[in-house]
């Protein structure tokens, strides 16, 4: 079956890959262009481990057709740090011990970044709502919420 060429911007750089019919964005990112930061957890849109931002909005890569990102901007946790500097959210996650196994972390970070981008001063409730689609099984929600609030406060000061 014919594959479709997909050209898109991944973490600021133009990338191209061939998408098989029906292929999802998660597979295209991981196997097609080698960005391994989004994770497979369920393939059903329930766990949030594959969360990526498309044109600034969070999407579940496992439920997104690969072809649909043609010409769009995709951001993943692999692109959060820039110029050797960690993103304030990454610093905060490290500081507050907000990752145990680390498997849900890339998705959590993308959901958190999308929140802070649209609401720089979130309440605790806003944070809980923002990560409600991301499951953590190592029972780490409290430190994760704390990390996002710490990052928001740090930004406020900056």
């Amino acid at each position, binding site marked *: 079956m014919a594959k479709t060429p997909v050209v898109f911007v991944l973490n600021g750089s133009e990338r191209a890959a061939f998408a098989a019919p029906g292929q999802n964005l998660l597979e295209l990112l991981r196997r097609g262009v080698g960005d391994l930061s*989004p994770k*497979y957890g369920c393939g059903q849109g329930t766990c949030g481990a594959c969360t990526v931002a498309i044109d600034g909005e969070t999407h579940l890569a496992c439920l997104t057709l690969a072809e649909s990102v043609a010409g769009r901007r995709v951001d993943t946790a692999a692109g959060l740090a820039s110029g050797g500097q960690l993103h304030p959210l*990454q610093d905060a*996650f*490290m500081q507050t011990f907000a990752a145990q*196994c680390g498997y849900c972390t*890339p998705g959590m970070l993308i959901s958190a970044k999308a929140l802070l981008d649209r609401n720089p001063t979130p309440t605790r409730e806003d944070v809980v709502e923002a990560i409600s689609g991301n499951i*953590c099984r190592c029972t780490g929600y409290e430190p994760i919420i704390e990390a996002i609030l710490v990052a928001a406060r740090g930004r406020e000061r900056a």
Partner: protein
Amino acid sequence: MIEFRKEFFADERDDNLNEIGKPTRRQDILGHVTGRSPFFDDHLFDGLLHIRCVRSPHHHARIRRIDTAEAQAMPGVVRVLTGRDVPRNLNTLLSLLDFGIDDEPLLADSKVAYKGEPVAAIIAETEAQARAAVTKVRVDWEVRPHVLDVEEAIRPGAPVVCEVYKTNKFIYHGKYDHQKMRYGDVEAAFARADHIVEGRYQMSPIEQAPIETCGAIAAPETNDRYVCYTSTQALFFSLGTAAKVLTTPSNRFHFIGGTVGGGFGGKVDSVHEPIAILGAMLTGRPCKFAWDREEEMQVGAPRGAERWYIKDGVARDGRILARKFTGYFDSGAYTRLSSYAIIKSVGHLPGPYTIPNVHADVYCVYTNRTPATAMRGFGITGVDFAIEAHMDKVAEAVAMNPIDLRILNAYRDGDMKAHRREAKNCALIECCQVVADKAGIALQAASRAASSLRDGGGERGRLPAHTALDQHGVVTGIDTGGYARKTGAQGRPARHIEMPGYTMPTAASAGRAPAQSPARPGAASTAASPSTATEPPRPAPADGGNRRQGAMRFSAISGLRRR
């Protein structure tokens, strides 16, 4: 967020902790926050093949024939594996510790014993092609009656789930169909109790549900070895298991793990690595075998369900005089780790309470359910649920606050535990007091004044003068071929298990008081003597039976001995 209560037991420790209570940085957290931590699936291989299993739609069925011809001809299919391709297609996880009989095939070839049991594996160019070919494998099933309930499974005439354990019960030491604890005389204590409180407790199997599903990728290396990236929690279990079932020296395997996307016990069963490596061996290409979420939920081994019957004899003032347990662990179709979980469980009875008479019979039962395995505190958590639910029921029976009841019965330093060890460093009373404070529950003055450091030992620290014993639990005619081998390589005679207070039930010893074996003092007190119940009070073992002599080893409680 961590609260230190340093006022408790302040004189029992130096308060000069260097690390505890201070933040530290995980060594792996930079990888986690940058998305670079290398989980097993984060390794890219050119020409990676994908493995999907053909699974049983039946709880219990004989396999008459497996026809893979149509599947083999499907687009993208490179190879179809069946049990015949597995060099040694029978294993039990704990055989690496010489514990238990090989009971489980990697790919079932003659029968299936649970719904979802794998009978073939498709290796294909893409996952989609592997899935498509799975539906084309034809299996001629002879469906058999199944049993899903632990107590039904051990009734006479129940379907035999696992061929090596015909009674549907795991056999310990080649002789015992359950784990046993006897301490004091529960029946005598029931007779003088004011209340008898009985309960039945049933827990469900629980899926560990890590976000990363279980899986492995194996690939040929250039030095005649195979590299295997795996999600395992137990790298050397997986390495040893792969070496055993593939009959290949383990130095030809290069296992890389340690980055685990959540495990909680569900990633110790070592079923992915041997299949992925076998695929790589037979195709010469990298092979990935990973479960999807549906498989993780359906065939991923859960925390096994347990059923507990508890009967307490209780005095009017709330003191528990006797506690009797009958427990059934649902091991599912194969052993995996359930037999070991029960050893842990029985060593934990009767919970953190000083009860002078305790009796327990606990069975590892096979049913046509998904095999059970490890999960956070397995063997303890399930029975603790039963014990603590039962404590509330006892509290109701004697009209006491449940926290007061727990404090009244809690271990205090110096008390004798039912498994004949002295209670040390107890803190249940203090925990209960803090919980009551936080919950705003008023305690009785005596509970408020109680301390783990006071009122223990003395009479409470002594072994019971008399322990009622029975002859149940000895079965004959089963040879595990392993740690409890009846005739060894040199044709040794039946082995006498060295346990204090235990004598082999021979004609010569029948009716005599049990001999005191000095071999492993205090090490295996869950075993009961087969002598009759009316014997005179048994003297304490020479060492008092309650002093720790060296580290407690798994081998000591399992009956494992170096051969």
